[in-house]
């Protein structure tokens, strides 16, 4: 069942800047959808339009089957968690969570129960009488979550909620938020610029670039079958290797330096292409084998469990990801791409072929 539907929703500011080009997608009930992209891609604008904090220039937004373009945020049955928490600094944790319920005229007993339930779910029970300034960043973020939960809304909206936390806490809160959302089953839209958050939390990911959708899909689809070089290089760290090459329509692609590979697809249209190989998909060997390509290693990054080899392939930057047991070759190694997943993108448009 569709919980939220965007049909050709766009946003143009009065100064003529178009932040979001006509965009359409659906969000299923109970789904955790992540909007991801670099800053300025329009992901926050889309979220804020769903929240009602930003007007919709054109198109229709439906929540639970009702067009809500002109409905006040408070009446959209949504709850939002902000990047800087946006807690009311002068109110106690209890009152922060209770404020929305009070404005809705919930009974005193009902408020008390809802707040205490949410607080115990979020391990905030002992902090109910504290002010936000007396809490740590993680606790504040939990209060912000609590404020959203007590309302029992049809839709959770998260606007980069973890970007003010340190890395360790971020990893922990990621898991907590996702577990909580599964438990409550509330449809959620989550905005982030962090591809790790997108990959680990999402049921489906919407990748945005310059106000347009690049691709919608499950994390696995986005990672393994990126529809464009933008998605390929944005998702994954280190990003997918993209190498300029020439496709001549004869079943092979030709790299600089006289190297060539079997073409992963046949398009029948010769021209400039980009070859995409995930760093962990490339296999590095120490001795030259048939079809192996010379890989000049510049430096090695030790990451404990893994090693990253940065170097060049035919003069173009290339990264290989190996386990920590892999030997470190001197100078030049060889890349065997025969068993690798190789993708081919149009050289001009970046679209996958």
């Amino acid at each position, binding site marked *: 069942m569709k919980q939220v539907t965007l049909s050709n929703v766009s946003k143009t500011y009065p100064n003529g800047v178009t932040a979001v080009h006509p965009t359409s997608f659906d969000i299923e009930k109970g789904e955790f959808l992540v909007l991801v992209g670099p800053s300025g891609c329009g992901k926050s604008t889309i979220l804020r339009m769903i929240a009602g904090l930003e007007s919709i220039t054109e198109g229709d937004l439906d929540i639970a089957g009702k067009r809500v373009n002109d409905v006040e945020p*408070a009446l959209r049955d949504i709850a939002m968690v902000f990047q800087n928490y946006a807690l009311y*600094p002068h109110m106690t944790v209890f009152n922060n969570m209770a*404020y929305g319920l009070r404005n809705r005229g919930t009974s005193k007993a009902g408020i008390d129960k809802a707040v205490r339930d949410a607080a115990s779910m979020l391990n905030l029970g002992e902090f109910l009488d504290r002010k936000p300034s007396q809490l740590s960043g993680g606790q504040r973020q939990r209060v912000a979550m609590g404020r959203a939960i007590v309302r029992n809304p049809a839709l959770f909206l998260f606007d980069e909620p973890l970007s003010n936390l340190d890395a360790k806490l971020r990893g922990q809160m990621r898991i907590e938020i996702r577990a909580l959302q599964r438990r409550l089953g509330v449809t959620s839209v989550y905005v982030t610029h962090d591809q790790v958050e997108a990959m680990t939390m999402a049921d489906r990911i919407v990748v945005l670039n310059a106000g347009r959708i690049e691709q919608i899909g499950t994390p696995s689809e986005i990672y393994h079958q990126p529809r464009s070089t933008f998605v390929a290089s944005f998702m994954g760290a280190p990003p997918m290797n993209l190498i300029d090459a020439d496709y001549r329509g004869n079943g092979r692609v030709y790299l600089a330096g006289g190297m060539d590979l079997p073409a992963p697809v046949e398009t029948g249209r010769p021209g400039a292409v980009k070859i995409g190989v995930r760093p962990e998909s490339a296999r590095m060997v120490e001795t030259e084998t048939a079809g192996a390509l010379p890989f000049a290693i510049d430096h090695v990054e030790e990451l404990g469990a893994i090693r990253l080899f940065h170097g060049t392939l035919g003069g173009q930057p290339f990264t290989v990801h190996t386990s920590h047991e892999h030997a470190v070759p001197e100078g030049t190694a060889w890349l065997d791409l025969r068993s690798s997943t190789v993708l081919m993108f149009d050289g001009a448009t970046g679209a996958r072929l």
Partner: protein
Amino acid sequence: MNKTRIFDHLVLLLGVAFMIGPIAVAFLTSTHDPYEIHMKGLMTSWGGDFVATYDKVLFEKGGFTGKVTGLAMLKNSFILGIGFAVGKIVLSMLAAYAIVYFRFKMGVVFFWMIFTTLLLPLEVRILPSYEVMTKLGLVDTYSGLIVPLLASATGTFYFRQFFKSVPEELLEAARIDGAGPFKFFVDILIPLSRNMIAAIFIIMFVYGWNQYLWPMLMTTDESFFTLVRGIKQILLVWVGAQIPDYNQAFALAVLAMIPPILVVIVFQSWFIKGLTESDK
């Protein structure tokens, strides 16, 4: 280290003596009788007329008509000071709220119009203001004393700057929480402005307390006299025929200082927070 400390304290003590000196002299002088003051000038010793002088100043009816006591003047000054402070805070908060949070046509123009009134002090418009008050029949009333001076560009400006520094997300969170413009103002903005309100209260209270020209123009009835006017009056009334009651003038001056000092002491911790710190 120790030596510098002693030196630091010396400097501070000197500063204190410098600041307190005139007040102490005024107080000590007020305890002498006027003839002695007239002959010997300012006094630095305890005079022994303390009870008599302050009793007279506070409770004896004075003035031309014999209607006003020091206590009544104290009350008038309080009404003026508090009326000023509260009125100015309410007005300028509302004005700033409108300017910052509501997008209406010419909002910027209105703000700058308010702002430019800073360039026009009361003295510039004192005659027209008086004319208006006369026509409204507000001469010799508290409203006439307070209302014409309530519009405050300074207050509006301070509150505008403060409201602008309140994070946008707070407004958005409140909107999602179902708070309309009125609730947001009362539940969120006013509590957040607490320190700012205290700071402006002090400034405006002292400003109102020390008003001299406007009350002199607006009130002819002596029962509306404020302390600041009373001081002047004492020196005027007996001038010529007798030696002025210097001791009473000094006593009134000392009394006139106490309430503003109390206000500053009570509000100072908020005042400093209001000017320096933000707990947003």
